[in-house]
């Protein structure tokens, strides 16, 4: 099917997130306004106004009532999904990068960038049931990794936190004590900045994409490397199909290196790989710049991609897609 082009952002996209039911799609971009769309037809439903900087990441609660967004304006904000009202704003001393709600939505993990001599941190906040009781204290603060922490997510049962970023190492932390539990093996891990990390639907494994032109699949509990998918360009975003053994990887030449002669040169394609065989299945072209964000609809029947070109492209799969034989 022809993809639906969603033009609502004025700057490059940074992140895409579906809610649990898969009827809403949240998009973050370097403009200051996260936007929510109907995931079926790409109609714009509304925006969340209040940030004063690029928005890097977001997460939506299980009941689709609350949205959390992390921004370069050094705040993380909680929103009412329905009304677009800002419920609370956590203030930091440096730009916020990654945000993720825990199972049960009572906790949120936030990573902040190194800034003005401050090191990067991973912080855990309590999310109150009633927004009026919300406080800004951190339950836990972890320091240690060098450089930006591009993603921080919760492990099974909120017992662990998984982080990855510029130092190319993937780490698992104890979410109670902040102790480092596991670190990815130098030999097998990524060689360059990890740009993205997504968990599988059941939370048993996760996929990381890196500028070293590969994506890797890991066991969330043991941090064992399971699969590697190699491509020809730096990976900015990756996603996993919830229903098929497919992995989709997006990226492309760095925006500053993009040639002006031929847009095929940058390889701005979303590439599908077979998750188990690690073989390339196909590609979806269309963006005029690197792909920065990818997300699968939880029903597995559509996916969306967000590019440096400021567009979100919503792709509903043709029936043929579900009959691909490897």
């Amino acid at each position, binding site marked *: 099917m022809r993809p639906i082009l969603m033009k609502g952002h004025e700057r490059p996209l940074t992140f895409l997130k579906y809610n649990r039911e898969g009827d809403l799609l949240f998009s973050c971009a370097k403009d200051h306004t996260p936007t929510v769309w109907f995931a079926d037809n790409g109609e714009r439903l509304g925006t969340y106004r209040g940030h004063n900087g690029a928005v890097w990441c977001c997460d939506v609660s299980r009941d689709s009532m609350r949205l959390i967004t992390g921004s370069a304006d050094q705040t993380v904000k909680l929103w009412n999904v329905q009304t677009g009202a800002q419920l609370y704003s956590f203030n930091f001393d440096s730009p916020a990068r990654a945000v993720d709600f825990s199972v049960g939505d009572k906790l949120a993990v936030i990573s902040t960038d190194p800034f003005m001599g401050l090191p990067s941190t991973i912080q855990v906040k309590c999310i109150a049931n009633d927004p009026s009781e919300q406080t800004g204290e951190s339950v836990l603060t972890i320091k240690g990794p060098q450089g930006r922490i591009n993603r921080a997510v919760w492990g099974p049962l909120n017992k662990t936190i998984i982080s990855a970023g510029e130092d190319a190492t993937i780490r698992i932390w104890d979410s109670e004590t902040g102790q480092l539990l596991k670190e990815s093996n130098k030999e097998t891990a990524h060689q360059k900045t990890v740009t993205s990390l997504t968990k599988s639907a059941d939370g048993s494994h996760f996929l990381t994409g890196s500028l070293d032109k590969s994506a890797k699949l890991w066991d969330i509990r043991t941090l064992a490397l399971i699969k590697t998918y190699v491509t020809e360009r730096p990976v900015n975003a990756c996603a996993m199909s919830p229903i098929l053994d497919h992995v989709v990887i997006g990226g492309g030449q760095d925006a500053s290196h993009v040639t002006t002669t031929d847009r095929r040169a940058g390889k701005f394609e979303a590439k599908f790989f077979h998750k*188990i065989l690690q073989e390339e299945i196909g590609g979806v072209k269309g963006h005029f710049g690197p792909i920065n964000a990818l997300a699968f609809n939880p029903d597995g029947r559509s996916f969306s991609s967000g590019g440096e070109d400021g567009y979100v492209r919503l792709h509903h799969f043709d029936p043929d897609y579900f009959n691909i034989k490897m």
Partner: protein
Amino acid sequence: MAEVSMADIEATALRLGIDISSVDLDSIQRPPGEDFGIKSDDDEDLYQEDGFEMEAGFGNVIVVDNLPVVPPEKFEKLENVIRKIYSQIGVIRDGGLWMPVNPESQKTLGYCFIEYNTPQEAELAKEKTNGYKLDKSHIFIVNLFDDFEKYMKVPDEWTPAEIKPYVPGENLHQWLTDEKARDQFVIRAATFSEVFWNDPRQMMPELVYRRQYWTEGFVQWSPLGTYLATVHRQGAAVWGGATTFNRLMRYPHPQVKLIDFSPGEKYLVTYSSHEPNNPRDTHRVVLNIFDVRTGKVMRDFKGNVDEFTTGGSGGVSGVSWPVFRWGGGKEDKYFARIGKNMISVYETETFTLIDKKSMKVESVVDFSWSPTDPIISLFVPELGGGNQPARVSLVQIPGKEELRQKNLFSVSDCKMYWQGNGEYLAVKVDRYTKTKKSTYTGFELFRIKERDIPIEVLELENKNDKIVAFAWEPKGHRFAVIHGDGPRPDVSFYSMRSAQNTGRVSKLVTLKSKQANTLYWSPGGRFILLAGLKGFNGQLEFYNVDELETMATGEHFMATDIEWDPTGRYVATAVTSVHEMENGFHIWSFTGKLLYRIPKDHFYQFLWRPRPPSLLTPEKEEEIWKNLKKYSKKYEAEDQDVSLQLSEQDRKKRKLLQEEWDSWVEKWKRLHDEEREMRQWLRDGEASDEEEEYEAKEVEVEEVLDVKEEVVPFDLDQME
């Protein structure tokens, strides 16, 4: 050797707060005599050779002999003369001129010592003034001081050389006996150089040998494929062997930049250029010709860079490589270079000029050898503002007789293309139009093997077409030309002897509007790859010239290099590191089927290993072509076996992967189920993670979009 990986070094640097990228590793030298327990596994002897002049410390001293013997009153005068001569060459050190005096007669002894600042100056002084005639009876004999020492060590009595027991060498041609008749290639990517078998049946290459930092510059096969040459700071080396790559010989030549094998791979020419000490001087050029097997220097050439630049163009662009062009076919009998108003032809028996003198050719700008015969073709441009026509001549070596000459008028430039068997020579002539404002192109075709060497003139149908590319069919009688002005040029094929027309050139076909700018004939002829590199982004068209039809088209996006394997069965297309992205290579069949793709970052070189010429006679080859079906049967069966085996292997592998994955998933599922209650608790008892718990309600909404009232005309008459 101690194991120190780059990662360790980087880690250490990080700990010490050193930015590794800012460290110039070449500037670090270990203290003399200290090796930190790290033994260098190669090139020790070369280092020693280098250090030789340093240790003696007299490398910059020369001894001048055969000076006049003078009494004290003339001492000062002689000293001044010598100082004058030798200070022109380099800086003589303070007190660096010493002329010993016989204490009894108070006369000089007829020799003196001169100390320069650098060994290079001493070397140059020796070269320039050895044999200098001061007057009739005083001809200088100049030697390096160190040489005296060397010659002193030669024992007075001759002892027979120790005869080393014969050690049978490896079969250097082992690779030609591959059971599957595969070809090898070498690639250089990042710091690794790797040699592979091309295995199209397996759809992938098979590694033969791989080595990090194998070369400091580039790698190069010898023309018959026996050796792989690498270049290093200390010189060049060749590698080969039956099963792996061992170093067979080294050729010391400090700072070697370029190398070139003779066509029969008997000799290796190495080249380096050196920065002058004095800013007013030009670069110095050193060329050595080695015997490949023994490693002996057969002849060396040293001089200023302008002595080695091509005659006519006046040395703007520097030295054109190769400086020495080899002639006389695979026997490596002659080599020649072009100089100002001359061509110097040397022969390899004595490594001296033929007839002891160069061939005088006024204003010659270009020459080339016939690939098979000792014939030189040379081009002399118009002289005297057009009063003397431009000229292309064929000259027989060693007799230097002119076989054929053609005068050409209003010529702006000429390019010479020899056909691979030396049967034909095509000269592309760019001529000025009458207004002299533009040029047009024609060809002069020489039939070398026919009596009196007849010449034919060929002009394109559209005279204004620019010639983009020209190429002879290897071993054949056809040639291809890309011509045209527009963005999509035409490609034409011509034959020197078509069926109807044996004595004249005739056009076979013109293909209109092709996305091509380079021509790659299969080494066996018959097939040609029309490639659009650069501006065309790697368009490929595989064309059959026998049938005059396109077999396939393809694209290797951004391709920069194309090379046929020596048998003409496969083509490699590569994107080298001139582009940042897409680096790697593709292998195609000659029919244009993409066989496999290998991406490699920082990809520098792809070279097929050449094969020596076939031992089959042309008649035998023709016979095989005729009975190809008979021969191919066997191979087709083999192919099928392999492909069956492959798909079986593949199936097994996939099954294994699937099983492995399933066991993972099984384990995760168990863990996931075990944690169910825990998760439920975390969610305040809200059901579990199953998706069923939310129900899809179908809600129908009716909306009134618009209400419109209209008067409908009602005709009573119609009712009836």
